[in-house]
């Protein structure tokens, strides 16, 4: 029998020199965040009445949501299309989405002037507001993600609950709770998996509708009524590259052999998705005749071209080549470029394209804003590392072929 892959908690030392550097970044980010909470947004950020939204929205939230798209695209592939060979990547993708969205929610809260009112949209509804729709969808999807994660927790701890000290009295009740959860979810998980995909499609597209209301304030290269479609298409096309990218980094960092065959197969699916996205993006440009703006040499036109060339066309070429999609380097560079392209697209849409009529100074993120954003990324990496060491997420080859019922979730 050939190697059989089973998700297993990874055993290794948590702190390495690299992890300590990342830890330092996280600490600095948290310190600036504390300053923001004590002294107000103005003390830490360069936000102004001209530029009300900065990189905390453009990168932490908008790009964060897009780059967490690996969660719903792999869920659709693994569970809805029922392609079992991809199940080795479903769990890492789920964890990335879970952490990604948790930090999106946290970033939103930290950007709110009145963060302690973040629950208001739950009871104060404005159906006309795109932001309301995005907010509700993200909250619902975050809940779904946590539910989807429960089977991993039950798998890890059923029969192994061992609480320290006086809490050990709770071992039995906790264990039976986990068993009940596991049993119920085993039968109902499909409801949540489909809901997760629907909710993702809804808010990924609505995220694009967000900036449409800025009207003439937004540069015509990006301002289009099909922005929701473009956001959805780009989110779908960045899903698999994100999974490939992470899988390669995780295997490198933990000294594992990358699942090259699965990743290559995943890679072959990227080109058609990128192609559709490119077609709509160029088609929109032709129909609205915004290519005239490419003639002028401006920050906007240059960044738009970089977004298209490096973010779509070059990776499209890489993923179209069967030879390159079989190599680790080809997969890594192609994926990194798609991720870069979508990241830049969200920054462009939310920050570069935003052009208020009355300007005193251009917006550039403050040191505090940049360090908080880096801190969030660092925290996410640290948590990812901790999670894959505690929970069975990353699949490793098993010598014994004992199939657990948890191997395929959501049956």
């Amino acid at each position, binding site marked *: 029998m050939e190697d059989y892959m089973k998700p297993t908690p990874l055993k290794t030392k948590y702190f390495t020199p690299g992890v300590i550097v990342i830890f330092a970044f996280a600490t600095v980010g948290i310190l600036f965040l504390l300053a923001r909470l004590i002294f*107000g947004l103005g003390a830490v950020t360069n936000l102004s009445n001209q530029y009300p939204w900065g990189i905390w929205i453009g990168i932490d939230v908008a790009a964060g949501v897009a780059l967490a798209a690996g969660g719903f695209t792999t869920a659709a592939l693994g569970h809805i299309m029922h392609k079992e060979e991809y199940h080795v990547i479903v769990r890492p993708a789920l964890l990335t989405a879970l952490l990604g969205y948790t930090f999106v929610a946290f970033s939103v809260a930290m950007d709110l002037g009145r963060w302690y009112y973040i629950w208001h949209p739950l009871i104060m509804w404005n159906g006309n*507001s795109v932001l309301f729709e995005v907010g509700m969808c993200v909250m619902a999807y975050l809940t779904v993600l946590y539910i989807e994660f429960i089977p991993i927790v039950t798998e890890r701890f059923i029969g192994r609950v061992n609480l320290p000290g006086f809490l050990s009295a709770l071992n039995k009740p906790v264990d039976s709770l986990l068993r009940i959860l596991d049993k119920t979810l085993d039968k109902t998980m499909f409801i949540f998996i489909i809901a997760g995909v629907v909710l993702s499609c809804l808010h990924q597209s609505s995220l694009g509708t*967000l900036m*449409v*209301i800025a009207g*003439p304030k937004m540069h015509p290269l990006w301002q289009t009524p099909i922005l929701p479609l473009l956001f959805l298409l780009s989110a779908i096309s960045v899903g698999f590259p994100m999974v490939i990218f992470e899988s390669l980094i995780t295997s490198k960092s933990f000294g594992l052999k990358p699942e090259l065959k699965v990743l290559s197969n995943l890679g072959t699916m990227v080109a058609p998705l990128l192609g559709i996205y490119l077609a709509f993006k160029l088609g929109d440009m032709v129909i609205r005749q915004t290519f005239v703006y490419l003639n002028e040499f401006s920050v906007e036109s240059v960044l738009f071209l970089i977004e298209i060339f490096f973010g779509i066309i070059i990776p499209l070429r890489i993923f179209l080549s069967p030879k390159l999609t079989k190599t680790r380097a080809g997969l890594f560079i192609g994926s990194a470029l798609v991720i870069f392209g979508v990241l830049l697209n969200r920054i462009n849409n939310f920050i570069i394209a935003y052009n208020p009529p009355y300007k005193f100074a251009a917006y550039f993120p403050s040191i505090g804003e940049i360090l908080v954003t880096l801190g969030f990324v660092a925290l996410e990496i640290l948590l990812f590392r901790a999670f894959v060491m505690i929970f069975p997420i990353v699949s490793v080859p098993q010598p014994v072929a004992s199939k657990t019922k948890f191997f395929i979730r959501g049956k």
Partner: protein
Amino acid sequence: MSKQTRRNFIKTAAVAGSVIAGLPQKAKAAPKNILSDDRMGVLVDTTVCVGCRKCEWACKTAHNMPTPPLETYDNRDVMKKMRRPDHTSLTVVNEYEFDDYPKFPIDVKVQCMHCDHPACVSACIVGAFSKEENGSVIWDTNKCIGCRYCMVACPFQIPAFEYHKAIQPEIKKCDFCFGRTSKGKLPACVEICPMEALTYGRRKDLIDIARRKIELYPDRYINHIYGETEVGGTAWLYLASRKFEDLQFPKLGNSPAPGVTEAIQHGIFAYFLPPIALYALLGGVMWINKNRKKSEEGEE
């Protein structure tokens, strides 16, 4: 009585309902966002304004904001720089000089335009903004979560935010003196204006007045009432002697400020049909794939 029409019945029922609910609530229960023909507005004649900035002082006083004494407003040095309304002043007067008439600079009072179809009302995640029946667009501190999406949405770049407050920072903008006008008083700026550059009245009447002014003094005014049709109409209307772009008014189309977002939004969510259809479709695909897998395994 037996021939009471349905409409009448509903009317009676509504009146009865509001009486039962208590009269003070009647105003609150009035339909929001329905434009009243009697809604008010202000006509700003920039050819009359002398830039005394008394309106700035009156506005601050009426809103209990700190302000230096009125005499200090005689200093015209502040006019050298373009200013925008912010959390310290809800209205500002800017001055524009032109080479052809250096002796007669043009002064333009800036504040919230109180759109008929405001982008802020449409955008606000918690519905903290509302268009009132009398024309004012006002903000509710009890709902606002400080997301600043209203600022992203506003085509006139008006709402300002208190960035240096950690707790209960507010969105600040002209509220059309809602507190004063609902008691029958004039907006503070209109009341104080010594030149009568500001005229408060029914928006309909103001447009008539503005048209007549343009007709009577074609040399004095350009033939354009700013705010009559811009972004679907605004409560504040402007007359000027030169093109409004020269006075830094944003060039805006005639479609309402929320633009196409509401159409897109309601399209994606029309009766929740698209999400439900997608859910059903995915469910179907999942079921088929699962069964196919099963039958394949069974055959093996």
